[in-house]
């Protein structure tokens, strides 16, 4: 169990984290989401007391991070796979990390095997790809078999096989009753692996809930209809208050009405339906809607260079 209470961190005049509080429960994967610059990484650094927070504190199972005697046995964290000396071999990187917490050298080879880096363990890290560095970072997380795992963008640079591996690893850790907090920009990944969500924007908590609740509350819902007689259906649907978007000659998306109502309208007007399905927006849609006001860096729309007059 992680308990973050009233955490704030300022850098000069910029407030990176603003009185943020949330809980992460054991046994599930919790996704930590927020737009770029929303303070996710700073929050994670403050949680581990690498950055000194201006207010607030974090406890792991009731204890502050600094009070953990051999922290790698309790909390495994991967904040950035780049925090490695490029001239050291992967094995030597893990050896110093293991030694600092009294972890046996044999465990280093075990975790190297576990992350699939055994054959590259003796090579210098500068020869590693980003994906290999992520795997090395994860090996470091697993060294002490920690109860709590904190990962910042662990899927960065991984190939599809690696992404699936991370997903399975996180699910397995959570299934063992461990506490797992993972930030990611890949919302489709989070939708697959996370049960809970902590969503922040501009350093403040926007929402903490389960993924299902979050999508249900914020994602758009509509009804998709396929029919050879869509033209005959448009007028009655509009009259009943439905907002129609035409997808193609035989397909309509209808908002503001539920599937049952649309079905009854079709029956009443003798329109044959080939499909009548309720649709829900993705986690990505819900996330973009919820964080629209908190986005620090807005993108332009794709279009021709120079801008049309």
């Amino acid at each position, binding site marked *: 169990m992680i308990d973050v209470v009233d955490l704030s961190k300022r850098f000069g005049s910029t407030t990176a984290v603003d009185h943020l509080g949330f809980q992460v429960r054991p046994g599930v994967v919790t996704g930590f989401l927020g737009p770029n610059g929303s303070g996710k990484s700073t929050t994670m650094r403050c949680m581990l007391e*690498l*950055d000194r927070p201006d207010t607030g504190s974090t406890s792991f199972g009731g204890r502050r991070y600094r009070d953990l005697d051999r922290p790698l046995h309790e909390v495994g964290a991967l*904040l*950035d796979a780049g925090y490695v*000396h490029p001239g050291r071999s992967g094995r030597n990187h893990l*050896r*110093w990390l293991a030694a600092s917490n009294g972890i046996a050298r044999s465990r280093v080879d075990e975790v190297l095997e576990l992350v699939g880096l055994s054959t590259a363990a003796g090579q210098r890290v500068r020869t590693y790809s980003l994906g290999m560095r992520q795997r090395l970072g994860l090996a470091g997380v697993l060294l002490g078999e920690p109860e709590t795992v904190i990962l910042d963008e662990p899927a960065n640079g991984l190939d599809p096989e690696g992404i699936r591996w991370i997903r399975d690893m996180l699910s397995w850790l959570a299934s063992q009753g461990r506490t797992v907090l993972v930030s990611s920009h890949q919302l489709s990944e989070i939708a697959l692996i996370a049960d809970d969500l902590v969503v922040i924007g501009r350093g403040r908590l926007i929402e903490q809930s389960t993924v299902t609740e979050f999508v249900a509350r914020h994602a758009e819902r509509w009804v998709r209809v396929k029919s050879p007689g869509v033209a005959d259906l448009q007028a009655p649907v509009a009259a009943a208050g439905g907002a129609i978007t035409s997808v193609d000659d035989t397909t309509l998306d209808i908002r503001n009405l539920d599937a049952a109502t649309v079905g009854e309208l079709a029956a009443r007007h003798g329109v044959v339906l080939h499909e009548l399905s309720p649709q829900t927006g993705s986690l990505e849609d819900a996330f973009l809607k919820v964080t629209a006001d908190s986005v620090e860096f807005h993108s332009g729309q794709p279009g021709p260079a120079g801008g049309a007059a």
Partner: protein
Amino acid sequence: MIDLLRSEQIKLRTVVMHWVLAVIALAFPLVITLLTSFFNGDDDGWSARSLVEVLTGTSFLSVLLIAVIAAASVTGEFGFGTIRPTFTATPRRSRVVIAKAIVLVVLALEIQITVVVVGWFAGSAIAEGRGATMNLSTVEAGTNALGGTVILAALMAVVGLGLGLLVRSTPAAVAALILWPLLVENLLGGLLSLIFDSSGLAAWMPFRAGFTMATLDPFDGPSRLVAGLYFAGVAAALLAVGTWSVNRRDA
């Protein structure tokens, strides 16, 4: 603490640059001393005193390199970001600093004791083989000066570590370690002497005081012991400020 010492030792020994600098720190005074002994051994003027002078003189480069290794061992951690996993693994940062200091001082002692012992005995054997008579007890303050280089090496490791913790940048730390003793102290010492009309002030420049420990002909100013204690105080103060800074600032 044993675990932490082992961890810091692995870190120190698994970076090639540390090895390169340590080998130069070890080899430079030995090669110069042995070559000088070989080529001057049959010279009437070559004596035990000459050998000690060459050894202490060349050791100045060794102790500077030891300070550079010490500084780089911590600035490298900030540069490559490994300081974050380090402090995640050991959140009580002062313990990390103490472990680093112990490991670096041990390395400094290993290097400089080897330089002094091998330099003296091998240099003497070569010179005696070529007809010179070598006896350390005939050299006034010879043992003190050679022992001084060993203590100076240990203190320079502490200075390098303290400076590294403060500036966090390898180029800045190396520049400070080279320029301060070789340039800044001379300029500042001369300037202070002019302003206050006293040559005594220059003797209290920290590195000059440190080097006083390790030379046969001490500069004007405090005695070898007082200068050594003063430099040890400066090294301890620098490490204390560095530790305070690393505890206070974000990693």
